[in-house]
């Protein structure tokens, strides 16, 4: 008995999200990084590691991730890593702050629109149980920038 209207579901699993889930960008085998640096979402068992490479100019050169997660958390990590190269750590921090505020419902989803494809993650706000999935990579990035 699949309900007639699967519209809501498509709001969550938009084409871009499914694409990044099936072919994640910047996903790599990071088994050389210690598992102590694994970030976990204890409610669902998802886990994620990040590797940030800094350029000589003090800006982020590239970010790669490894781990196991649902469509939302994988796509969110993939979309996030695409937007990071060229940012200073300071810019990355404000980028994280805005994203987390939108996902917490404290800022309108439109705030994400200037970031292209990443804006699709604003739709997750309508699925409160999945917000943690979307923010896992961002909290991992926040933590990694502190270290």
């Amino acid at each position, binding site marked *: 008995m*699949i309900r007639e209207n699967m519209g809501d*579901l498509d709001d969550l699993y938009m084409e871009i999200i499914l694409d990044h*889930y099936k072919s994640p960008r910047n996903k790599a085998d990071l088994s050389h990084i210690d598992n102590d640096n694994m970030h976990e979402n204890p409610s*669902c*068992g*998802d886990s994620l590691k990040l590797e940030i490479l800094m350029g000589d100019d003090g800006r982020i050169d590239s970010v790669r991730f490894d781990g196991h*997660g649902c469509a939302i958390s994988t796509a969110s990590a993939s979309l996030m890593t695409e937007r990071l190269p060229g940012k200073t750590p300071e810019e990355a921090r404000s980028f994280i702050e805005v994203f987390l505020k939108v996902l917490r419902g404290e800022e309108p989803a439109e705030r994400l629109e200037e970031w292209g494809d990443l804006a699709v993650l604003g739709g997750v706000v309508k699925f409160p149980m999945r917000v943690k*999935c979307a923010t896992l990579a961002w909290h991992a990035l926040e933590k990694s920038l502190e270290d």
Partner: protein
Amino acid sequence: MTDGIVPRTSGTPVRPLFTGAPATDPLTTRPLSDPRGPLGDEIRNDFPLIVSHPDLAYLDSAATSQKPEAVLTAIDLYYRQDNANVHRSLYDLAERSTLAFENSRRTVEHYLNAASHREIIFTRGTTEGLNLLAWSLTELLVKEGDILLVSALEHHANFVPWQQAAFRKGAELVLIPALKDGTLNLDFFRELEADGRADRVKVAAVAHISNAFGTVHPVRASSKWCRERGIPLVLDAAQSLPHLPIDAPATGADFLAFSGHKVYGPMGSGVVWGREEWLEKMPPWQTGGEMISMVKPEKSTWNELPYKFEAGTPDVAAAVGLAAALNWMKETGVERLEAREHELELYTFEKLTAIEGLTLYGPADPYRRRGVFSFNLDGIHSHDVAQYLDKAGVAIRSGHHCAQPAMRLMGIPSTARASLAPYNIQADIDHLVEGVTGVQEYFK
């Protein structure tokens, strides 16, 4: 009698059932003795929520069951007609409330075939019951260097309290290892004997049915080993009480804890059954009103059983609701409920194992499992499975099911879990299967 599961004695054999004997033993048959015969789909009419959600396939009863009208009515009537504090006042209303509470205790006592009402302690649920037992038993028995034995398949409620008690006491937490099919490796008892650790085991705790994989644990094998050594065995019956008729003393265990809300009763209700000879010796867990006999500035003495373990004003309505649930099960016929559910379990097992790309966890023998179907779909995360199924009108759980050690052991972060109750129908399973096919297509 095996494993404390009450056997059927007459009538036509309907199907084999796991006896709880060691895994190599042959399965036995249990005939349905109830003259009313099998239970039909009309059982759904007893559940207002099921009636008011005709399009919902509720397959999350291992998390919490729906409640029959009889339970809702009992709680409502208690508050409308009998509400007063218990065990204190002399007026008529207080007496009625006390009677309602103590009659509920008698209902539980008889349901579990306990030796006396003194063996029945009301709690908020399995978790509280297991915390009570872990604290009190380790206070009584455990010192530095001793061993607390639990299984690798436990729900966190039957794991963390023992782990923390081990930390407090400087004791060692030892896990009975699990096999890949979600059963326990009971040869481990021999290993404990061989390396001498058996003598250091002071308490053992194990789930009757695994909430993560549905494995039925052969309690008798464990309880026999424990009894021979005078080790008290605690049984987490949260998942077994809803599915099997249980004779508590016959399990051979010394304690059993369960939640009311998983056996059609209200949330916030639960029971610890314990053998009186143990409970008498054990120190109280929580202290305060009701559980005392005499209080002086220099010392206090404790009330008699079971009140020694019931500090403060109890949730009387929850106890009344829990008793109403057990009475509903008895009146409907515990074995009829079980038989109906097991038919559906076999149907579910057959349907799910036929799906390509679906891995079903737990025993490959459908007669050695109950209630729970934990699975993963190739390349699709359990959260995405559950999210899709929700839109298809099918309610299941996804995640680690509060059993992270068990999940880690299986090498999986999470599973999707469908769990059954007698109000489920074949159509619910068909919707689940349709949904699974749909989600495979969606994420292809």
